[in-house]
């Protein structure tokens, strides 16, 4: 062990994770040779004895559009926290492709390897304009020394303008994001996600608070993204889930209760009990 490694050990930096120290990040290449982009294996997370996730197993295929439904407290948000590095599982493993162990990476590192997340409550930068929100999200070198001297190239500006058109905010580009309507904020956050160029998108109740028209447009957007992207959508709105048309996973008390297309799942006796029985 060299002296630099010793020093890093003392200040708590894993020598295998140079990117934490702001050095060039070790190349992490997404390997989807088995056509699977996400493996969650036997994951358990407990908070003060309460098991938010209980031996959860879930695999998402590359290019798939998956919907996750389930009653409140089923573990949907905790599952997203585990995938994005916000929460570490007590047991079990989470792999992105064949090789990347998500439980060893920090939130920004996971964002860099291509996992984007939309929160349940729209989380955008209120004081910044819509344009600046997208600029900050754009895939680029996000280290301090680059940000100090970063300028926008013409192509960057075009890409942001294009994204603004896609999320129908081109007229609102220079307004502070805090002044947008709820639905527009949702769209802005989706736009920020797209600027990151993620391979896997995690969307937590993306259409909450949207008008019917906006909901249907969102569904169309997601369907068009599937194939080139993998999407995991948590949603309560069944009409929206139906419109998306992908495979549906039902979570209950931290593990998978049923999986299949929407009609199969809706006719499953256990699912009916959980949703309607009480």
């Amino acid at each position, binding site marked *: 062990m060299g002296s630099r490694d010793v020093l890093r050990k003392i200040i708590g930096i894993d020598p295998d994770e140079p990117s934490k120290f702001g050095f060039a990040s070790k190349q992490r290449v997404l390997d989807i040779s088995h056509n699977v982009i996400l493996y969650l294996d036997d994951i358990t997370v407990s908070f003060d004895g309460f098991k938010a996730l209980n031996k959860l197993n879930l695999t998402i295929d590359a290019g798939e559009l998956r919907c996750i439904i389930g009653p409140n407290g089923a573990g949907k948000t905790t599952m997203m926290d585990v995938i994005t590095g916000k929460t570490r599982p007590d047991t079990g493993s989470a792999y992105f492709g064949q090789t990347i162990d998500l439980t060893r990476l920090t939130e920004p590192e996971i964002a860099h390897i291509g996992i984007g997340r939309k929160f349940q409550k729209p989380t955008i930068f209120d004081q910044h304009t819509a344009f600046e929100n997208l600029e900050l999200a754009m895939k680029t070198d996000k*280290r301090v020394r680059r940000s100090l001297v970063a300028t926008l190239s013409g192509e960057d500006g*075009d890409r942001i303008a294009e994204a603004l058109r896609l999320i129908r905010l081109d007229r609102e580009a220079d307004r502070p994001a805090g002044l947008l309507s709820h639905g527009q904020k949702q769209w802005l956050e989706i736009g920020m996600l797209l600027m990151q160029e993620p391979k896997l998108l995690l969307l937590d109740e993306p259409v909450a608070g949207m008008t019917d028209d906006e909901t249907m447009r969102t569904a169309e957007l997601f369907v068009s993204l599937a194939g080139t992207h993998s999407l995991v959508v948590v949603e309560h709105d069944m009409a929206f889930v139906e419109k998306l048309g992908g495979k549906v996973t039902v979570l209950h008390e931290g593990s998978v209760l049923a999986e299949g297309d929407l009609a199969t799942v809706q006719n499953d006796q256990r699912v009916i009990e959980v949703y309607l029985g009480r």
Partner: protein
Amino acid sequence: MTPRARTPYTIRLFSMMQRGHWIALGAFLAATLVVVPILNLVVPEGSAFHVSAYAITLVGKIMCYAMVAVAMDLIWGFGGILSLGHGLFFALGGYAFGMYLMRQIGRDGSYQSDLPDFMVFLDWKGLPWYWSGSDSFLWVSLLVVAVPAIVAFVFGYFAFRSRIKGVYFSIITQALTYAAMLLFFRNETGFGGNNGFTDFKRILGYSITAPETRLVLFGLTALLLAATLLFARWLTTSKFGRVLTAIRDAESRVMFIGYNPLWYKLTIWTISAVLCGIAGALYVPQVGIINPSEMSPANSIEIAIWVAVGGRGTLIGPVVGAFVVNLAKSWFTVSFPEYWLFFLGLLFIVVTLLLPQGLVGLWQAIREKVQNTRAGHATPGEK
């Protein structure tokens, strides 16, 4: 939406401020570098236009405070991190430069020794190791920057890595400056104990009490205050500044789009500490004393009050706040010394409750109102 093309760097630098702001900055420099020296040296003492040495020292001191306030605004107003320990970095810069001033006394102290008086008094035979090189102006100039930077970096690294935020961070910074104060109070620490450093005689060989020396220090402080403002403006209008305010407003979103807030916070924290250190180094030769009370928790809290009174998140606000509060302080402590702290507390409550944007926010609101009324008169019948 027009696509934005890349603009040359020099143009970007000039376009980062409106023309009015550049003119104001130029006027400030002209006043401090040309007008004040003339009014002090050329205009005779009896004249109504004469600027006294007292006024120059007072304004010079407040300009140092203004630099600290801008530094505080960078971390608090833009980064959303309230430090209640910024007095520490100010004092560290002051002590570092004070070491040089102590060495410049030479054998002119009360004991006619090569050692500073307090060391003779403690019966020390030689300088402690950390005083070596303190007779070199260049070395202490380096220390003025490096000591606050290293202390801030190490402390900030552990605090931000542990994701300590909000009021917890504020309390820890308060404890940090308090602990440092206790350390500097001890004679064994080697910084003059509770008397600190004083009775300075020279700086770079020139008499420290000479009017010319005072004016040079005054002008230098004005220049560095202007430079601090420009640097802060550049920093906050860069992408770095946008990421910083984004961290203030929604830190989790920043992390999930791939920025590591640790390095952003640590960078602005360290920059802020260094600016305070430089301000402290300019303060000590003008005021003529540095002692551990500069590290007292109350001093650091006062820095936050300057920024709150002037207006957080604006760069001119902290400067205005530092001037208003300190001018009020120097008047109050002469006229009604026992009421100053009550007034300060009252001011803070009023600003917090009624003026969340500080005096600058108030000024902007008034200006907007006047403009709206004018527009209303100009176009009657329209809303």
